[in-house]
């Protein structure tokens, strides 16, 4: 039923291409609220996790509804359905693992969710049957999981602090393939046929995932500090062409795999305090980077409790949010790029002394389509 629903829904509810109509319709429906336009408040997701949010992912555009899943340090993965007209969220279900969740991902058809945990395993959550089953095992906490749909195989790619990448056919107890990493995996992104892993010790490795996954290239880090988050971006033909890499030193590098001009690669600063605090400028970690699925612009979130939107081609900042009470630990765009979700929770950047279990963990939804439009070129 799951797949059936998805396939019938596909096409009928596709929102791509219908965008221009919507402005007029919505503004005519609701002119007063449009006119008010006073600092729109973002929508808070109901029943938030009990501990910090480590990862956020929206369901793929292959299913008509919008679901949001969030992994948390409270060992749970939660799923909400998001109503795209009202911004209302309805908690749907939750699954637990025996350690904090470090990463989640969807299968391409939106029927399953994979959950990577500090308990050194990855589980597959079949949403249709609401059951989970272990699909991967590492010798250390699993930092990432990504679903790969290639021409000749489907697999879950997992990376861990045990310095391994493993590819799992979800039905077999042992990995299809495993590759050694030079160091612990810290940040990973996959956009078939490209994969990229940032490791401890500022390692950076690009993988080619078609046919048999192989290491494609190791590159020197464009950054001088610990890698923290990474996100692949695509070119105009929708092929992965480079990535954005964020470090703990409030800086993001835009890096092309094969730059036509070395000057195409650049870095920019972000998530730093304005002015000084007791004589210091505070520099915060970049906790997450995501690219907008339509515009190709990007969002960064930081320990400073702000999110920012950027246009990497115009090399400009599009927007910075107000400062939240706590760091922003994760963010996500939904399939058609209308919704930007971000999680406000403690990220450990000031150590355990600043951890307060009483503080609320929050996830917000922000209507972002306009905010992320690229800077107009005149």
């Amino acid at each position, binding site marked *: *039923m799951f797949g*059936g629903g998805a396939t019938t829904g596909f096409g009928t509810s596709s*929102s791509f291409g219908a*965008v221009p109509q919507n402005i007029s319709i919505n503004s005519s429906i609701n002119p007063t609220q449009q006119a008010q336009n006073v600092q729109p408040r973002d929508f808070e997701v109901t029943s938030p996790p009990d501990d910090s949010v480590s990862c956020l992912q929206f369901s793929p555009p292959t299913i008509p509804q919008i679901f949001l899943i969030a992994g948390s340090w409270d060992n*749970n993965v939660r799923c909400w359905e998001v109503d795209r007209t009202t911004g209302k969220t309805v908690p749907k279900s939750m699954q637990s693992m025996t350690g904090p969740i470090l990463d989640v991902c969807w299968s391409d058809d939106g029927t399953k969710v994979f959950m990577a945990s500090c308990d050194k395993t990855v589980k597959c959550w079949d949403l249709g049957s*609401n059951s989970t089953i272990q699909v991967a095992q590492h010798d250390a906490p699993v930092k990432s999981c990504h679903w790969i749909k290639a021409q000749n195989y489907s697999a879950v790619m997992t990376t861990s602090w045990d310095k391994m990448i493993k590819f799992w056919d979800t039905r077999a107890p042992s990995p299809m393939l495993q590759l050694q990493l030079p160091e612990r995996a810290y940040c990973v992104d996959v956009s078939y046929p490209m994969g990229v892993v940032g490791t401890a010790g500022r390692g950076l490795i690009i993988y080619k995932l078609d046919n048999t996954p192989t290491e494609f290239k190791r590159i020197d880090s464009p950054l001088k500090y610990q890698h923290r988050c990474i996100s692949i971006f695509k070119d105009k033909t929708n092929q992965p062409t480079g990535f954005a890499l964020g470090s703990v030193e409030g800086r993001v590098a835009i890096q092309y795999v094969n730059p036509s001009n070395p000057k195409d690669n650049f870095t920019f*600063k972000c998530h730093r305090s304005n002015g000084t605090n007791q004589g210091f400028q505070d520099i915060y970690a970049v906790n997450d980077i995501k690219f907008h699925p339509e515009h190709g612009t990007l969002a960064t979130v930081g*320990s400073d409790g702000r999110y920012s939107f950027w246009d990497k081609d115009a090399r400009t900042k599009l927007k910075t949010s107000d400062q939240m009470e706590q760091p922003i630990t994760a963010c996500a765009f939904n399939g058609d790029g*209308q919704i930007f979700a971000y999680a406000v929770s403690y990220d450990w*950047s000031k150590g355990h002394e600043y951890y307060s279990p009483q503080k609320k963990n929050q996830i917000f939804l922000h209507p972002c389509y306009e905010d992320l439009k690229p800077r107009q070129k005149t």
Partner: protein
Amino acid sequence: MGRKKKKPLKPWCWYCNREFEDEKILIQHQKAKHFKCQVCHKKLYTGPGLVIHCMQVHKETIDKIPNALPHRNNIEIEIYGMEGIPVADAKEHEALKKSGGIPVGSKSSGRNNSSSEEDDEPESGPPKRVKLDQQVSLVPPQQQQPEMMLNHPQHHHQQQFAPVNAMNMNLAAMNNNAAMANMMNMTAAGFHPHHQIMSPQQQNHMMNNMAAAGMMNRMGLHHGMMTANPFMMAAAGAAGMNNAMAAMQMQQMMGGGGGGMFVPHQFHPGMQPQHVPVRPLFPSAAATAAAVNNSAANNAIDAAAALNNMMGSRPSATFPAYGSSTAPASKPVEVKKAPSIIPPGSGSRIIHPLEDLSLEQIRARMSKYQKPVVPSHSISAPPMLLNPTTAAAPPQPQSQPSCSAPPPQGSNFSGGGGNQFPRPSSSNSGPPVNPSYGYGQNGNHNPHHHQNQPRGMMMPRF
């Protein structure tokens, strides 16, 4: 008429297409109109120079050149007068001129150019050829010192410290108190540009370091080391001075030569998170102490250099974010088992634990997150090794709805009215707007409804 005159084109401003009689005036115009910092009105030499200035001095990002035409407000392009204009634009302008067209914004030269605000800076300086975020070129030369010290324990080549040291020697000739007073005066007179304020703990530590370094040397040179790092004297309050005195007294008691062994435990890298490369520098300082005893003057230089580096009193303060991402110093750090994150410089600090581990790794060490928690409401799957065949069947479009799965129990997460996630919930508590969010019920979706939403989603609430 009869002669074809080849009149050279007037200088023109790339940013606003204005023409000028003279390139000097053009440059004045650019500085006043396009390269002037909006915050402090300082006039920079190029667009990128302005961007860097704003980033470093005011921590503000500039995304376009002020007063420029919309298509000419690029902050990346480095233009100084007529230099640096993109060839295409130059040709276009030339063509436009020859065809008699008047570019937008073109006026006769220099109405504003003679205003008094033009005069507050020398015009003759070379343009700053620095690139945005190309940090390598921004690292001041002193950055190289840590590595030099590691490689060359003798340091005869570190001539850049010679002047300081000469002064030190003079001071050393005086008695202690007089020297101290002198140092205080010097620092009070604005000897250094740093505005860093140190915590008492840091001062304390710093003084200890000074004491430790001092033990390598003859007594008279201690003052030298202190003066070599005047900013820390300036920063130190009364408490710090007391510490310094105590340290000096201690040195006197210890005598001149035998203090090398005290060096190691005088440095406590872990206790001083704000210190600039304490760890990498420390071995070099220790090595210096052990290796060199023949030349007290050299020792003084070394120690002073080490202190300078440790205290972050390099001129890198003008480049707070980058200047100090010390490539040389990071090398020894990477070798270590538990490396620490190197603070970026005296003007800034990274909000991150000192350990160079990911936040997740640090957090996962907490006992709270290590004890295995028995999941209360998840359906645990059979271990995959025992039962691999049942694991995660491939997507089956025809599979039955979720009735087969036992519902989660005791979950406080069913805030939406107890809907099972996978259950087609046409019944009770779906959002009224969208009654059919269950899978397989997609036929109920009003396509029109969906099409209307993407742009306007959530808009009604605004």
